[in-house]
């Protein structure tokens, strides 16, 4: 299981701080965060809502610039530009798909402004659409599809980009339970099949354990790292059987203890300054 750690680092975050500048002063969203993601790893970040997960994803995707600290992608520091080879699947999928484009055009969007031949683009979009089971919907518009299907389009679009690092920001937060389970297994399949390195953000503890090789637990606002733990579960995993395993239950309970009763943990570990206005 620890094999991943010897692989090259795809993402390395060092002493990251991020503060939003607003009219009422600065709001610190991330305070001093460090972690790394290795090639082929599936890492989940779990934390309460408002803890700074989306902020972190936007920084890694190059949409926001870190206030302090460094972020390296494949060894190269982020320098105010959008990094190559990173794709982000947004929390708000319906707003991130372009309603004036068909499903196929949406999927081809990240390729269309690159130097790729028409045939290559078509081939890649077909491949990604078939990976998410939406080949038959290529000529439809996103708004003609259900929420779960729209999220699959967003995933296909990210896959067509063939990212070295796939960022997913609470991608299944607003779909029903059945769809959610299907999409979780879809992403797990994609990870296995393409060997994609995935950084997956969720506020759902079960989901984080079920999907990943490693779980990072963030504190409530502003984000600090509370736990970085390998998930001792073999693949492929099963929606029912895996969730009943002793290791699964124990890890879930440990994370729940950190997130739901943060006070008890704080006194136990090294003393940290309590910041006002959590959530």
């Amino acid at each position, binding site marked *: 299981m620890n094999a991943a750690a010897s692989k090259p680092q795809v993402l390395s975050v060092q002493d990251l701080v991020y503060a939003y500048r607003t009219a009422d002063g600065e709001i610190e969203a991330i305070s001093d965060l460090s972690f790394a993601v290795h090639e082929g790893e599936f890492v989940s970040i779990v934390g309460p809502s408002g803890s700074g997960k989306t902020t972190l994803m936007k920084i890694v*995707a190059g949409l926001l610039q870190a206030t302090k600290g460094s972020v390296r992608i494949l060894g190269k520091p982020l320098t105010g530009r959008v990094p190559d080879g990173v794709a*982000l699947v947004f929390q708000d999928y319906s707003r*991130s798909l372009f*309603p*004036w484009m068909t499903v196929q055009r949406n999927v081809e969007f990240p390729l269309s402004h690159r130097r790729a031949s028409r045939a290559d683009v078509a081939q890649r979009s077909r491949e990604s659409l078939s990976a998410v089971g939406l080949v038959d919907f290529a000529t439809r518009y996103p708004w003609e599809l259900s929420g779960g299907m729209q999220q699959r389009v967003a995933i296909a679009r990210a896959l067509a980009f063939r990212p070295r690092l796939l960022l997913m920001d609470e991608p299944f937060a607003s779909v029903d339970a059945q769809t959610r389970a299907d999409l979780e297994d879809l992403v797990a399949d994609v990870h296995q099949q393409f060997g994609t390195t995935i950084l997956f953000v969720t506020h759902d503890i079960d989901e984080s354990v079920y999907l990943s090789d490693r779980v990072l637990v963030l504190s409530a606002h502003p984000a600090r790292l509370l736990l970085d733990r390998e998930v001792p579960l073999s693949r492929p995993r099963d929606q029912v059987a895996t969730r009943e395993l002793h290791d699964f239950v124990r890890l879930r309970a440990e994370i729940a203890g950190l997130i739901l009763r943060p006070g008890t943990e704080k006194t136990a570990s090294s003393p940290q300054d309590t910041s006002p206005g959590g959530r």
Partner: protein
Amino acid sequence: MATTSAGYARARARAGFRKTIRGVVGIMVALAVWQVLASIGFVRPEWFPTATTVLGDAVALLGQSAFTLQVLSTLYDMLLGLIISTVVAVPLGVLLGRFPLAYRMSSVLVEAMRPIPALALTPVAILLFGLSGATTVSLVVWTSTWPILINSVYGMHSVDPVALDTARSFGLGRWTALYRVALPSAAPFIATGIRIAIGIALAVAVATEMVTGAGSGVGGWIVQASSGGSLIPVYAAAVLVGLVGYLLNYLFERIERRLFRWHLSYRKEGA
């Protein structure tokens, strides 16, 4: 799914038919009232002719090239003006919508100039362009620019930041994202601005021609025709101008509905 969408289509067709019938009935009632009032004869028939007289005259006018050529001349000036103001106002509006500082610096100026009616500027236009079609074009440009500019800014402000972030996250530069994401998002708003402009442009073109006179355009034609003492041709021309305006608006709406099928406001009606 298929049956419901077919059901929707049928319901939509029925609603469209009902709307057309109501519109036709409304016009018939108005014409009947007009006919009766004019027939009573409490105003001289040269000043207030009956509906049938005016409509008959309008149909006859359509056959006269002396008149239809003037209509074409007015339409030409109006379209030229619309094209110029679109070419100027859309890029300007997109830039103002994109750069908040430029918008804040210009918005008061825009709000102060917008209410200045074209007619108030006629003397200036005549000085600059003489008694020609260019005067008409310039005043159409003045009036059309504002709704197109303001709607373009509004369209840019309504572009979803998530859509822009998506474009940026896939490595599109600012200008590519503007062209490929912001502009298509704002397009329905820009089109609304152009449709509003079409509505006022025709009225402004005809009014300008009536002031500059000299027999050019529908406006000029109306001034000449009314000098004969009878108002019947004036009414007939007015009816035809109204009809042209209606058709232009109808045509443009059809185009919008087709192009922006994807936009929320058209998803129900679009097929």
